[in-house]
């Protein structure tokens, strides 16, 4: 799916958030990224969706070099990736329904498929009855689920989720993880940043651990803590 070759990101204030990363994620895989706060997990995602450019190194996506993309080609790249942002990024002036429909309109889906898909995806995350609410009328966990619904609705090749269960109770978290598993089973690649030990230990998937911007562990069928 994508590859990082010796990627380093140094922010403007000389802070090195990600250092010399080498990483290859296979098509159709499901991987967790773990690590302490500030380890560079979100920076990794930002590099992948071209929100920031790497200071050094090369990034490939589907075999194509995306290290530097012209502003015309960035949108086409981003359509292949669905992101659940750590801070949700819902539009406060649009209702829940409109927020999801908006994501579909943006990539040119037909009104018909919008009318069909939005209710589908809302019932998938269990929020059909909140369709006409505005985001600031929702509980934190509800907002998070809307963000998830929006990321999956366009059926991207790769879904990246940055702490998608941070605001969810264990039960709802489990439901969400079931949804992610199902999506992954149908062929979508999944990359998930999480602090939720229970989930990681339960899923038995690949675990990539970051520390101070470096990969310090990369195990198939791993646990949240090394050697458990």
């Amino acid at each position, binding site marked *: 799916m994508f590859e990082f070759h010796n990627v380093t990101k140094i922010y403007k204030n000389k802070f090195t958030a990600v250092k010399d990363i080498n990483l290859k994620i296979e098509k159709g895989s499901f991987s967790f990224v773990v690590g302490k706060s500030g380890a560079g997990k979100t920076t990794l995602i930002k590099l992948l969706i071209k929100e920031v450019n790497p200071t050094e190194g090369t990034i490939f996506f589907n075999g194509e070099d995306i290290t530097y993309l012209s502003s*015309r080609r960035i949108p086409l790249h981003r359509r292949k990736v669905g992101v659940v942002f750590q801070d949700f990024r819902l539009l406060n*002036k649009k209702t829940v329904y409109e927020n999801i429909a908006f994501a579909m309109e943006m*990539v040119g889906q037909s009104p018909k498929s919008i009318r069909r898909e939005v209710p589908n995806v809302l019932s998938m995350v269990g929020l059909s009855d909140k369709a006409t609410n505005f985001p600031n009328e929702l509980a934190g966990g509800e907002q998070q689920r809307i963000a998830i619904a929006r990321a999956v609705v366009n059926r991207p090749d790769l879904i990246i989720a940055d702490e998608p269960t941070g605001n969810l109770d264990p039960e709802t978290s489990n439901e969400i993880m079931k949804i992610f598993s199902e999506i992954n089973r149908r062929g979508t690649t999944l990359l998930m940043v999480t602090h939720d030990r229970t989930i990681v230990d339960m899923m038995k998937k690949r675990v990539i651990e970051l520390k101070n911007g470096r990969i310090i562990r990369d195990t198939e069928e791993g646990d949240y803590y090394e050697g458990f």
Partner: protein
Amino acid sequence: MKASRIFNHTIKQGFQGIYRNRTMSLASVGSVTAVLVILGLIIMIILNVSAISVSTKEKFDEIYVYLDDSITNQRIREIGEEIGSYEGTLAVVFQSKDYALEKMKEEWGEDGRLLEGLVNNPLPNTYVVQLRDVSYASALIKHIEQKDGIEEVKYYKDIVEKLISTAEFIQVFGVIVIIILLLVSIFIIQNTIKITVASRKVEIELMQYIGASNGFVRGPFIFEGVVLGCMGAFLAIIVVLNGYDYLVSYSNEKLFSMLSVYLIPANMISLDILIIFVTIGVGIGILGSIVSLRKFLSV
């Protein structure tokens, strides 16, 4: 993506944007209207100053050639022909001294009786020369003055020149004010749209994260700018044309008729105003949107 879908999206999002940010939209329209109304005021002043100065210039733009009382009718005719053959001359009219006195008495009206007591007519025979253009004046005057039988050549050069320079001054001043106003208005509207855009920063960024093309992102905002500009322009047109119409009828009836100065009727310039205002309104809208959006395109 289908063109019709992009089009529909642009229109829908544009209008939705205007509606959802009502306060901002109102402020933008208000700014455009205010600026254009003031602009209209100045345009009206300039147009009317030009018209008045042209008509006044015409009135004064004649050369009076006073002839010696002593010369023969033959010589008078000769001088007339010479003046008439000069390239700058548009028309020459002979005014006999008797006719001149009659005319003077008439013009003086009541005071005309002052002239009753005259023993001889002190006025000279005169050729009134109309010029093709003011620029020929000094050459013609030089040319004629040397001739025999000419008592004096009179030309209201000072008045005409002062008039022209006054009119030019007002026009230049008006144009400067217009330019300043346009800059101020572009500035205000650019800021307004910058704020509209900034207040939707999250939305724009999100569109870009989802993978909307740049045109798809920019379209609705530019359309919004155009609609706001047009609305401002139309409001301004209504205010300016109605106000001016009222002003014309009021002033022509009551005030300036005594100065035999008439304002240009509103319907003669309404089309120009329409075109100018809509162009400026739309231009400001597009310009403001593009400038405001530029920094978001690098994300």
